[in-house]
């Protein structure tokens, strides 16, 4: 365990009322987000939902035009250097200088971080079997991602930010990345923010999840809580019906004839009462996966459209 010295003990990231427009397009709308210290926070949403724009605000690469962004209690856009030395960052396509050799790149990056741990960097490099004499431009995509991961971790950051880190990588590299998230969090007090659309990975490692759609936070909370408040119910009706019933709490429906299944939000007993009231019987009931909840919340078959 490595002690993290910090005077700041509240939420590591605090975003409030953040709105961002790119021309006519609203990239972020009234975003509110709190990332408590010591958690793995998963940011999920389809491509173009606003995840990267939000992350750029957290890193101070974009300045909040409306609303506020605080990282370790400070404005990252006002003092990017002061915030970024405490942050490790890995993007989907890390921009690494292709002409450098891996060893040179490590020595070069080290100069920017007073907390750089050369022994740890070497340990990571060896465990990822990266050749220090290889030129960056000759590395495979997976090896480049691993180099990016070493650069993000070697200064033992208090906050690790990963933007779609697994995108387009093979399962072995993805496992290295998830392993790095787990090791980071296991060291007391460290925090991870990562975006992904690989929901089974988010479900494995995240404590808290925020779902972003069209620049808005659709829901945000503890993963356990999200799972406990969603249910997948399969209903059987005495007669075949052409449409699913209007059921309070149902987000999506699939099925036909006498059997219809819904992903629902709400308390189980209330949902069951509603099922009774529409004359059906629950024949199967289970907890939906995060993937199913995600599709139910932002998929094309949302309840609003079913009701129309």
């Amino acid at each position: 365990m490595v002690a993290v010295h910090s005077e700041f003990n509240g939420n590591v990231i605090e975003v409030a009322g953040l709105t961002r427009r790119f021309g006519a397009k609203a990239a972020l709308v009234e975003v509110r987000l709190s990332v408590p210290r010591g958690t793995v926070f998963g940011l999920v949403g389809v491509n173009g939902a606003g995840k990267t724009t939000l992350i750029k605000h957290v890193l101070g690469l974009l300045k909040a035009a409306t609303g506020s962004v605080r990282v370790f209690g400070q404005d990252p856009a006002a003092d990017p250097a002061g915030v970024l030395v405490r942050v490790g960052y890995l993007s989907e396509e890390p921009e690494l200088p292709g002409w450098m050799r891996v060893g040179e790149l490590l020595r070069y990056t080290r100069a920017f971080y007073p907390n750089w741990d050369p022994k740890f960097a070497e340990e990571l490099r060896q465990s990822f079997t990266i050749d220090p004499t290889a030129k960056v431009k000759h590395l495979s995509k997976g090896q480049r991602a691993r180099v990016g991961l070493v650069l993000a971790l070697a200064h033992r950051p208090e906050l690790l930010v990963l933007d779609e880190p697994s995108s387009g990588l093979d399962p072995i590299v993805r496992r290295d990345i998830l392993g790095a998230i787990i090791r980071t969090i296991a060291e007391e007090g460290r925090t991870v923010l990562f975006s992904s659309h690989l929901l089974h990975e988010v479900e494995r490692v995240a404590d808290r999840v925020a779902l972003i759609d069209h620049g808005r936070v659709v829901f945000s909370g503890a993963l356990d809580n999200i799972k406990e408040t969603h249910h997948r119910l399969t209903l059987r009706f005495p007669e075949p019906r052409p449409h699913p019933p209007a059921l309070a709490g149902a987000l999506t429906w699939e099925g036909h004839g006498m059997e219809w299944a819904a992903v629902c939000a709400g308390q189980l007993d209330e949902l069951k009462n509603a099922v009774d009231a529409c004359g059906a019987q629950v024949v199967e009931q289970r907890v939906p996966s995060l993937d199913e909840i995600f599709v139910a919340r932002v998929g094309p078959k949302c309840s609003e459209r079913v009701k129309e």
Partner: protein
Amino acid sequence: MDIHISPHDGVPIYLQIVNQVKHLVATGRLAPGEELPAIRVLAEQLVVNPNTVARAYRELEIAGVVEKRRTAGTYVSDAGSRMARRERLKIVTERIDALLVEARHLGIGTEEVIELLRERDEILQPNS
């Protein structure tokens, strides 16, 4: 400790760990007094959040399957073997429930199922 996590089937991961540890204890693959891996070690092995493993261990402790010792390890409790019979019965009960539901859908009555059970049991007896 051989545990497999499937994030696709919806069952919360902490519960998957709880159920599988109970199963391992029930089948004797985890013996009373045996030490469970440390939270961090299991988290890295399964690639899941350490808080999830911690929650699973807490639930197992509340259920009396494991106990924490002063030396900070987590061990299968001696009460685990008493637990184990209940757990074994539970596993068989679940299979029976599934069998009965299936039989009902196929229009085969409970009496007939019991008769079939006896028949199959005789066939499966060694030296019969």
